[in-house]
């Protein structure tokens, strides 16, 4: 029997970090307590965001008395959050009415909010998986934006350049192009890290900006630009390259959602059932011991970053081939960063990522409705997301606020820190 705390100084850090990461991997953590913390974190985030909504409304500040102020404040918040809810899931009375209308198209439109949620969630699954895969291997892939753009540009290019092939060939081809070019965008920072130690947080973020400007560049060339237009918009993707959707029912949900679930299963299998996944997890947890045991750490870093980039590239392909059917600047709309929040909320686990993606997809879909109905700016959703993550990451804080019993808690995965210099 030995004294754990008396070993080398680094041990304290290891012990503390282990506590935090315990629930990510330990089989015994209580699912219910984790769910409870997430729910409470969500509620707290909504409350804090409500404060921002209320405080920034001049009508509240300038109200003649407290009662009117509270009234206006309540309307602000309930309107905003109500809009979020109906935009994400649908308004119950409207839904029932539509379902019992007897007309197929009208009944289908009852599912419009849900369809929008799924449409928004699908690319988030891809970017969430991309970031989660990176985390497992000890890498911070903040380059989701750039990889999404790269993948979307490539998928779109194949989509509008290749003609005459059937959907069975052209669609997978376009998706593959998106995957491969996204992979390239992840490969570069991976290689730099493995060869020079350059920290991927910085290199991936820089490549994000490079990708943004590349989009503008390409969309101004004749190769990409739609004939007859002077604004930066690409040619339209061939119908054979489009992801099949329920457009006939006026719903935007498309096969990309199914692909997302399939890919999530594949990532799960990769991480827990293959030698490659074993290497990712070993290197992510302890690169030194992995190296001493013969695992090629540099190779793992490059492969992990590349795969991660490929997954994010699929998100871009998803958007171009399933929703937009052409490329415009800014189509990535924060997907890369939202992928980070999705991965964190999903605790680096493919199942969790799908669940978190649905949640944030719902928020995104709802935000559009919220802005339309109450003119509350959509950016508040980003605030809510960030707050949720912060509260989830510090369960002790939530426990303190709600006076919960101290349970073996959950936390954001503690990935190897430092700049690797």
């Amino acid at each position, binding site marked *: 029997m030995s004294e754990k705390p008396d070993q080398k100084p680094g041990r304290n850090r290891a012990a503390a970090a282990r506590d935090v990461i315990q629930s990510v991997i330990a089989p015994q953590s209580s699912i219910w307590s984790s769910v409870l913390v997430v729910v409470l974190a969500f509620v707290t985030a909504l409350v804090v965001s409500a404060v921002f909504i209320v405080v920034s409304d001049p009508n509240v500040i300038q109200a003649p008395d407290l009662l009117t102020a509270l009234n206006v404040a309540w309307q602000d918040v309930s309107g905003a959050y109500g809009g979020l809810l109906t935009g994400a899931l649908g308004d119950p009375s409207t839904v029932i009415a539509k379902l019992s209308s007897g007309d197929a198209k009208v009944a289908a439109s009852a599912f419009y909010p849900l369809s929008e949620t799924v449409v928004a969630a699908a690319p988030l699954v891809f970017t969430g998986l991309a970031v989660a895969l990176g985390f497992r291997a000890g890498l911070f892939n903040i380059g989701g934006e750039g990889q999404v753009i790269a993948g979307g540009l490539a998928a779109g290019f194949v989509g509008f350049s290749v003609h005459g092939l059937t959907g069975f060939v052209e669609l997978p081809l376009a998706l593959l192009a998106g995957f491969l070019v996204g992979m390239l965008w992840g490969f570069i920072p991976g290689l730099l890290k493995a060869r020079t130690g350059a920290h991927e947080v910085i290199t991936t973020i820089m490549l994000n900006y490079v990708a943004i400007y590349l989009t503008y560049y390409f969309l101004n060339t004749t190769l990409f630009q739609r004939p007859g237009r002077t604004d930066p918009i690409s040619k339209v993707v061939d119908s054979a390259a489009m992801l099949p959707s329920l457009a006939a029912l006026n719903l935007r949900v498309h096969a990309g959602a199914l692909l997302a679930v399939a890919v999530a299963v594949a990532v799960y299998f990769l991480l827990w059932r293959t030698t490659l996944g074993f290497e990712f997890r070993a290197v992510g947890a302890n690169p030194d011991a992995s190296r001493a045991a013969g695992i090629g750490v540099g190779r793992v870093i490059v492969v992990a970053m590349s795969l991660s980039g490929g997954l994010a590239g699929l998100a871009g392909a998803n958007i171009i081939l399933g929703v937009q059917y052409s490329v415009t600047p800014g189509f990535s709309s924060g997907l890369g960063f939202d992928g980070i929040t999705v991965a964190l909320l999903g605790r680096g686990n493919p199942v969790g990522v799908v669940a978190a993606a649905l949640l944030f997809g719902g928020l995104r879909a709802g935000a559009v409705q919220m802005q339309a109905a109450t003119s509350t700016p959509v950016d508040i959703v980003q605030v809510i*997301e960030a707050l949720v993550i912060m509260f989830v990451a510090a369960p002790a804080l939530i426990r303190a606020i709600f006076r919960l019993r101290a349970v073996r808690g959950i936390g954001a995965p503690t990935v190897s820190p430092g700049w690797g210099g």
Partner: protein
Amino acid sequence: MSTAVRALGAGARVAVDRRRTLGIFFLLVAGAIAAFFGYNVPGQSQAHFVLNLASSHAIPIPDLVVPVRATAFGLAAACAFLGTIQVVRGFGRWAYAVLALVIGLFVFAFLAWAARNSSVSLVGMLQGTLVRAAPLTLGAFSGLLCERAGVINVAIEGQMLIGAFSAALVGSATGNALLGILAGMLCGGLIAVILAVFAIRYLVDQVIVGIVLDLFCLGLTGFLYDRLMVPFQATLNSAAVVPPVTIPGLSRIPVLGPILFDQNVYVYLMFVLMGLIYVALFHTRWGLRVRAVGEHPRAADTAGIDVARTRYINVILGGLVAGLAGSYFTLGAVGQFTKNMTSGRGFISLAAMISGGWTPVGGFGASLVFGFADALQNFLSVLNVPISSYFLLMAPYLATILVVAGVVGRARPPAADGKPYVKQ
């Protein structure tokens, strides 16, 4: 075989390889200069480097006129000469200084070529470089204050953004720039408090907290911009820009005057802070303790230093400086806030801090490189350079990647950087 000769072996081979590669790089640069900037240029093309600034108080001096072709070949020859020496003998410790020189010569040749048959304001570009480097350096100082104490601050981008926003808001509403700057600093500090609490008390991974705070600030500033600044543009988003400060006498020196002594306030702030931080960090008791906490918190603890308190203070100081840096973008430059106006500069600051070896002067030097890339893009768009403006816009970001990839591994972060400290 003697020990000395045998001991040369592979280790020395690696060193020779590196030396030769660097030398070959110099030779390639020479070739590039000759090929791109000298070869196709008509003999009588001249580039005018304007050394005066219309708005400055400096004594005017004539333009520097260089024949483009001759200059290009001359500089190419110089680089080839340096390259040959490097391949054969190597410059030893001065190799990196020579590398900087070669890159400088390349840039000068490029400028001469870009400005052929027209003129470019060299002084303007250098002055712009310093101005653009100011927020980056201040951001690097912020990162450095935190990391020297062992806490990674990736939230600089968010702190800058919220600093920019609140500086514009308060500066506009009160009409007082100083209040605006203070507001910017305060908001940066508040975000830093959140970072400190999550990192130090709740032991959450510091990079993750930083990124999440960046997203939070992005969302919050965007939201408040739409809610408050768009409808009330005139009162809440029209701040007066802080006027430049002219130092009497010194500002009359040609070339140096406009660059150093007739400048944006933030440039002076940068120099003042640079001196302060250098002295404080390396020559005072406070600095010794901070660095001890960042290198070996357990040792500092056993010496009786309060590790958590030190880290809290430093992170908050870092937030104040980042907020100051952010206020540059509004009160120091354009007077108005726009969504996401920092555009990754917080991350470039981090790269500058790393490349600068976690020192104030180093951070300044690295920021100059990035600032120059930034200024270049601005000035070249005026000239007729056959490079798409979008590639020029990418320049600072590509430069960052190159510098980080080339320098990291040679620079050493504080030993306990990013590692939470737990007492029992």
